[in-house]
């Protein structure tokens, strides 16, 4: 493992993928998910759609039991900038892109309005995040690099 990488960065990096010829698709319980549950694919798709992930820390939750929950993402209210992606975010490209846009909007809300205001106005914050993801997805998919 390179000295300048954490284990998690190494696990998700192209360096490891090249070194062990890691499979390019999900396996086992996750095999129905079209997008590989790896950060490098998240970064690749974000780049295709011109979504800026600077200042965002992505964590992928790989618990199999989470497949039966229909949640795709969450934003950390205390470590602002951290986004957790759940298995169902990887169902297809649209779900992943919309989840990234949605959670990025929450990060913006937390930075702009502060945690207390966001906590007290959850419904309004979610309405804003859903509007944002719809508008941005429709715009960005037309311009996405293929």
């Amino acid at each position: 493992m390179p000295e300048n990488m954490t284990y998690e960065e190494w696990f998700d990096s192209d360096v490891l993928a090249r070194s062990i010829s890691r499979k390019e698709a999900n396996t086992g319980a996750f095999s129905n998910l079209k997008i590989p549950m790896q950060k490098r694919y998240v970064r690749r798709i974000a780049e295709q759609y011109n979504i800026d992930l600077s200042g965002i820390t992505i964590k992928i939750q790989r618990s199999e039991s989470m497949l039966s929950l229909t949640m795709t993402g969450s934003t950390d209210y205390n470590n602002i900038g951290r986004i957790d992606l759940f298995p169902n975010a990887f169902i297809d490209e649209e779900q992943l892109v919309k989840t990234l846009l949605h959670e990025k909007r929450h990060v913006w809300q937390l930075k702009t309005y502060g945690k207390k205001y966001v906590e007290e106005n959850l419904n309004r914050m979610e309405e804003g995040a859903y509007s944002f993801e719809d508008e941005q997805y429709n715009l960005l998919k037309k311009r996405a690099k293929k």
Partner: protein
Amino acid sequence: MKWLKNLENIAKNHKSGLCPICGSKETDFGYSIIDPKSRMGYGAVWCNSCRHAFHISRVEVKDEKHIKEIPHNLIY
């Protein structure tokens, strides 16, 4: 993620389990729908003893039984 076991419990047996902050059994969870057409919304898992909570920000709400008003004075 402090609330991961609670999410796993909900996935397995629809019970939210012990609070990861104070250890109380008095936890609950629920969902709220934002877009009735797509049934997309948000949810929370919370503790009724210490009021700490986890926010689920993007979810397709299929669990009819747990669509409910999410308390307002929670600490996320």
